[in-house]
């Protein structure tokens, strides 16, 4: 027999790592209690977390969903949880959630804003995710008019006549360039649609409506409210402010004196006044300048003001992106022999926009939250409606439930935007990492 009895012939089973070096304990030691000050901070944080949750959780869950007034809520909570209990009155949300979502939009037509919202998700999907079929982009192009028609209703020919204006502009840009040169065709592409909208679009829409009446029940702007109003204003502002902002940023860097001064003047003026001032101009001052009896829709006015406001900020954000781009990129584009628009489209903008993504999305989020300012000029957005709901003597005195619900809705939207921007940054990451 060989004298190898001290040598093992079989492997020992692996032992679990020491308790302090594995699992939750290790994680806690490394992250929560790595040093004495850290341990103290951790305990303090836990204490405050406990205090906050101990205060809010019972309030959230010791609640009443079924009562039909604040007094009813209080009675129901007392009956269920004892004399001293106080809790949330979620019944107000149950009774009024449709109002917080849709305002005074006729309830039998709720499918229209819902459909518009779903279509919006479909329409922006190909913009957000480039793996989707490009054909959906056609829906994206038509979507603004479709949404306008779905939300406001009325004759289908009005949005169609507006689309025709863009078609005319596009055709002019493509087919008149041989005839009039680049500058001429650009001017024609701007002027022809404006002439069409001013002079012929209304006549065309009326004529087509009398020949072939297609339309859905129209809903006036006064019926708009709640979250739907915020989303409508917010999405319009977001969708329009990006392209306008890009053009303003390019205009600000232009060598053409008039364009540059106009862009700088616009941007600096708009950035120099608070949004609420512009909203007051939209709601009160414009009334004086417009002829009596003019019906220039208040929501449209607000949308224009919000878009102008957001565009000026967007222009500066994009200018930041342009400024961050090394000069070599511009020179490389020139060296390739690309003209101005091609170099912008193919070389400069993709890089500048990528740099600016976090700020752009911050702007979007800020814009979306700014839509609550319209409650100050009497539009019933969720904040305005919370006041109107409180004016119902059944619900007078309810504050936190309404604000909590509104905050939750805003958080969902803003958080989604924020996550998407982080996804986009990761996807477009081309640096060394």
């Amino acid at each position, binding site marked *: 027999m060989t004298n190898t009895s001290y040598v093992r012939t079989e492997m020992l089973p692996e032992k679990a790592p020491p308790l302090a070096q594995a699992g939750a304990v290790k994680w806690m030691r490394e992250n929560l209690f790595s040093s004495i000050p850290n341990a103290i901070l951790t305990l303090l944080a836990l204490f405050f977390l406990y205090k906050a949750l101990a205060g809010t959780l019972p309030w959230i869950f010791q609640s009443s969903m079924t009562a039909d007034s604040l007094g009813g809520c209080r009675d129901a909570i007392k009956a269920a949880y004892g004399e001293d209990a106080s809790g949330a009155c979620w019944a107000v949300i149950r009774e*009024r959630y449709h109002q917080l979502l849709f305002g005074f939009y006729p309830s039998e037509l709720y499918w229209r804003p819902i459909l518009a919202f779903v279509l919006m998700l479909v329409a922006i999907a190909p913009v957000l995710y480039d793996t989707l079929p490009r054909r959906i982009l056609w829906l994206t192009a038509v979507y603004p008019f479709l949404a306008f028609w779905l939300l406001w209703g009325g004759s289908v020919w009005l949005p169609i006549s507006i689309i025709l204006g863009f078609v005319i502009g596009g055709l002019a840009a493509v087919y008149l360039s041989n005839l009039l040169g680049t500058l001429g065709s650009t001017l024609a592409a701007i002027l022809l649609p404006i002439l069409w*909208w001013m002079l012929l679009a209304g006549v065309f829409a009326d004529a087509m409506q009398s020949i072939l009446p297609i339309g859905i029940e129209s809903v006036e702007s006064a019926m708009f409210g709640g979250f739907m109003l915020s989303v409508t204003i917010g999405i319009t502002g977001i969708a329009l402010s990006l392209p306008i902002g890009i053009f303003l940023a390019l205009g600000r860097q232009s060598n053409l004196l008039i364009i540059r001064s106009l862009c700088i003047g616009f941007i600096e003026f708009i950035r120099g006044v608070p949004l609420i001032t512009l909203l007051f101009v939209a709601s009160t001052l414009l*009334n004086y*300048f417009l002829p009596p*009896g003019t*019906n220039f829709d208040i929501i449209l006015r607000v949308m224009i003001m919000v878009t102008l406001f957001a565009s000026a900020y967007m222009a500066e954000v994009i200018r930041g992106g342009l400024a961050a781009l090394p000069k070599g990129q511009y020179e490389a584009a020139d060296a390739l022999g690309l003209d101005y628009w091609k170099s912008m489209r193919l070389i400069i903008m993709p890089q500048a926009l990528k740099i600016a993504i976090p700020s752009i999305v911050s702007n979007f989020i800020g814009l979306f939250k700014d839509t609550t300012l319209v409650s100050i*000029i009497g539009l019933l957005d969720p904040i305005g409606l919370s006041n109107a709901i409180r*004016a*119902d003597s059944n619900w007078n*005195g309810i504050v936190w439930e309404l604000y909590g619900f509104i905050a939750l809705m805003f958080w969902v939207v803003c958080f989604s935007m924020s996550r998407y921007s982080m996804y986009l940054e990761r996807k477009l990451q081309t640096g060394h990492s």
Partner: protein
Amino acid sequence: MRSDAGILPESASYHRSIGDCVLDLMVRNCPNLRALGISMRGTKTILAFGPKSSRKGTDHQEEVKMKKSVFLGALTVAGLAAGLASAGTMDDVKAKGFLQCGVSTGLVGFAAPDANGEWDGFDVSVCRAIAAAVLGDAKAVKFTPTTGKTRFTALASGEVDVLARNTTWTFSRDVDLKFTFIGVNYYDGQGFMVPKALGVASAKDLDGATVCIQTGTTTELNLADYFRANNIKYEPVPIETNAEAQQQYLAGACDVYTTDASGLAATRATFENPGDHVLLPEIISKEPLGPLVRHGDDQWADLVKWTLNALISAEELGVTSANLAEMSKAPGNNPEINRLLGTEGDLGSMLGLDKAWAARAIAAGGNYGEIFARNIGEATSIGLARGLNAQWANGGLIYSPPFR
């Protein structure tokens, strides 16, 4: 919230240049600004965007004209149209088929939308009565929610036909802002609410108290006047809305909450223990609240005024929504009831309406007393006593001139 003056009434006595006009958003009747506004009439066809058709009935022909001319010659057309368009709110209302009524964005008991979006309340009832009188349909009202800051512009610019929004009748609003207050539908006054535990029995005991007060309102000015006149000190806690005031007051951020007495009662009614809070006996201001219309259209002002008077007279004469149908069938013994309900004489035609206009107005929501009892009276959770708002025969101030 109710008596807030917005930013403007105290500041308006200068309409000299366009610059001044623009600064003072309230100014409607500023000659140069009006000229500027009118000179832009031609833009109507482009700016009248959206599915709503034009609201102005009388303007229709001008509008057709303008569609052809648009910018060219807009000035001349506008000059003509301006002369024609200024009169006849009643014709406008009849032509468009509904009344555009400015109300509060929400005030307990006075104006609030219910779960179905139907507006209801004490002020809203006035609008419904007017619509019933003019158009025969109490539902033919579109409500424009206005804030303390937008209400006067909305009326001055023609966005609303009548403003029924708890607006205090003051000299400067009536004279300087060029509105016509057509009467008073609620006599209010500023009061104080304190916790019972404070042991205060009179506002004069409030020396050194912290007071929750809404900024930019007449209540703020009244408070300063009152404390100065009585030579006592206070520390204001500025707040923005009534809801915020409730939270601050309940959290103990201030000892006293002051606003209109009706608002205090409505607020106290929402507390978990209303009995722990008392309203002090002092009422330190006069706040006559009433509907108002634009200066310069007396026919419309008459109609709104006498619609309100019809509601008040109906209570005085004992005409209620229960006996209205029977009383308006045939002339009864009381000639004034007969004249009111149109079974005798023809008061309606003097207003440009038919005989049964007042009967329709009363049918819309009952007489003044019924409207009061249903929206803010003692049986509701707000629980306001009639007090100053009782009929004159019962010691109140509610008084209608005779229907004769």
